[in-house]
């Protein structure tokens, strides 16, 4: 049975060769961990990608999770416009010629960089004399000509222009659409194919997280807010951060801004070092600050779960989720890349923020670790912390 499966799978993956993307890598991982977990402790599979929607029995809980929505911070490729390029299209006057025309045009003017663009489109307006239109070539690929005509576009010995009307210029999407909004935008100009990432579509609608998931996120961000207020009372910036192990559903570390004694002790940096301490490392002590804490792994009996042995040894912040009240700065964002963070959730944006505002370090092309970032978790409450900060800064 297994052998049979493998034989069919393996060549399929071979086709991918060097182009295995990080997403396929991730889903691959999830799948494999699910395969492994006989005891039903799919300890890592749950946390990364596939948070399944659960029943809505938590709806009436005391957390007001309807007051906020977590939206994904997508990469530039996913959030920018797809861009447009000009091309010549021509009406197909004689419908019977369509398949020949497409075949011959494909070999004369292959649209290699525009695989997502469909060659032929149906004319929507009623009463049009011709039902179909075909893309002839890109304006940039067209031969030099004084007057644009179908005969000057098609060399006499190549494609026969039988059945084609006079060409006109259209705009077609330059890059394949990656998200539904991009697809809808692109389709207005010319029919485009789209391989939808359902998770992104749902996330963009703000519906990725189920009510119980949102309730948990609410709890974690609330403790980050509490830590932020504690920092503010000590005369430091009102920023708090909470590191969570989503597989165990427990808080690993809580930190807040400690810039009072070290200019680089931003909340995230404090949290990262507290995680190191929870694993027997670390290089600072924050014992003076009761709101900064960590859960030591050794004293935790939950760790002894069958199936989660050697491989579950925590390694820096791998697989952990970070909840932080304010969008991290460049230093903190890169610290999270170095720490192999699983996902990041933040409340409000910041002026020099590196997860959406100034940079998108979590989706930066050349970096070898990428992850999902969501913003807007308890956005209003996190935003309100800034007004607390205003008072302190004046005094400094």
């Amino acid at each position: 049975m297994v052998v049979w499966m493998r034989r069919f799978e393996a060549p399929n993956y071979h086709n991918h060769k060097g182009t295995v993307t990080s997403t396929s890598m991730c889903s691959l991982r999830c799948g494999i961990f699910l395969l492994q977990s006989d005891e039903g402790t799919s300890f890592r599979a749950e946390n990364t990608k596939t948070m399944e929607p659960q029943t809505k029995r938590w709806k009436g809980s005391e957390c007001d999770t309807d007051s906020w929505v977590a939206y994904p911070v997508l990469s530039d490729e996913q959030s920018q416009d797809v861009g447009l390029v000009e091309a010549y299209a021509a009406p197909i006057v004689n419908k019977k010629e369509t398949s020949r025309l497409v075949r011959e045009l494909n070999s004369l003017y292959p649209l290699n960089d525009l695989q997502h663009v469909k060659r032929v489109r149906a004319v929507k307006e009623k009463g049009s004399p011709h039902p179909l239109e075909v893309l002839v070539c890109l304006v940039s690929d067209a031969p030099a000509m004084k007057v644009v005509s179908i005969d000057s576009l098609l060399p006499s010995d190549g494609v026969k222009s039988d059945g084609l009307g006079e060409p006109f210029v259209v705009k077609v999407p330059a890059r394949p659409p990656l998200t539904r909004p991009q697809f809808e935008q692109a389709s207005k100009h010319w029919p485009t194919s789209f391989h939808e990432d359902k998770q992104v579509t749902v996330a963009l609608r703000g519906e990725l997280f189920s009510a119980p998931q949102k309730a948990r996120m609410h709890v974690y961000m609330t403790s980050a807010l509490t830590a932020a207020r504690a920092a503010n009372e000590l005369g430091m910036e009102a920023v708090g951060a909470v590191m969570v192990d989503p597989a165990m559903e427990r808080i690993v570390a809580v930190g807040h801004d400690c810039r009072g004694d070290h200019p680089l002790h931003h909340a995230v940096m404090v949290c990262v070092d507290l995680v190191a301490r929870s694993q027997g490392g670390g290089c600072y002590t924050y014992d003076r600050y009761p709101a900064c804490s960590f859960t030591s792994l050794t004293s935790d009996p939950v760790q002894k779960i069958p199936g989660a042995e050697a491989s579950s040894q925590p390694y820096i912040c791998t697989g952990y989720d970070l909840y932080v009240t304010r969008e991290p700065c460049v230093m903190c964002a890169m610290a999270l890349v170095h720490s192999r963070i699983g996902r990041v959730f933040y409340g409000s944006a910041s002026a020099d923020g590196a997860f959406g505002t100034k940079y998108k370090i979590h989706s930066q092309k050349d970096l070898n670790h990428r992850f999902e970032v969501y913003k807007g978790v308890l956005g209003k409450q996190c935003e309100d912390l800034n007004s607390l900060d205003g008072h302190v800064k004046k005094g400094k």
Partner: protein
Amino acid sequence: MGTDEGLRAAECFHPSDEEIEKWMDDAFDTAKDALENGEVPVGCLMVYSNQVIGKGRNEVNETKNATRHAEMVALDQLLAWCRHSNLDVSSVCERTALYVTVEPCIMCAAALRLLNIPVVVYGCRNERFGGCGSVLDVSSASLPQTGSTFKCVSGHRAEEAVEMLKTFYKQENPNGDQNLSLLLFLLSSPLLSSLFSSPRLIFSYISSLVSSFLLLSDFCFYAVSQELFINFFFAILSFLPFLYITS
């Protein structure tokens, strides 16, 4: 405010060739120390009015904190030195140069900005994480809330710095070590035993192979790119059925 002052300080504050040579020698010695201790070979020095007030090497593995890069360690020493000498941190930082064997990463570049360090002298570029132009240019970007921009002097003994990094990456990552040997064992075991006598066993074999691969690819983030692992992994998977049939 900070930007203007930082720029002015940087203009009147440019290390001479002799200074660069002298301090970079020291930085390279520190990097060698890191290499001997199984850390990424990066060493750095913070120099203020001709004296070393901070010296650091990578300490990531020791502290289990991935942010303990040489620059961060040296900045901690600088701060401790200021406290000890009862000097104002910002006035010291404005007149301090950093000498480092490899281009500071994005995180360290931002940290240097936050402390208003005006000049950074480095050896080779850091294509993986560089924050002074290689991946992002944090050193000169417009980030009004992130301190002041700094000037970079690059290329001193660059080849040597690259060689040290190569030497390190050729060695095994101490975190990936055990998994690598596990993998090697798993790859060699079918040749030694009749592991393939039942489909049940082949399943457990595959899953253990897969898990060791995943651990490897997870932990050896300094090693070969993950895509190579994946390709290799599927090459093995596609080969397994034939092994099963022939045995």
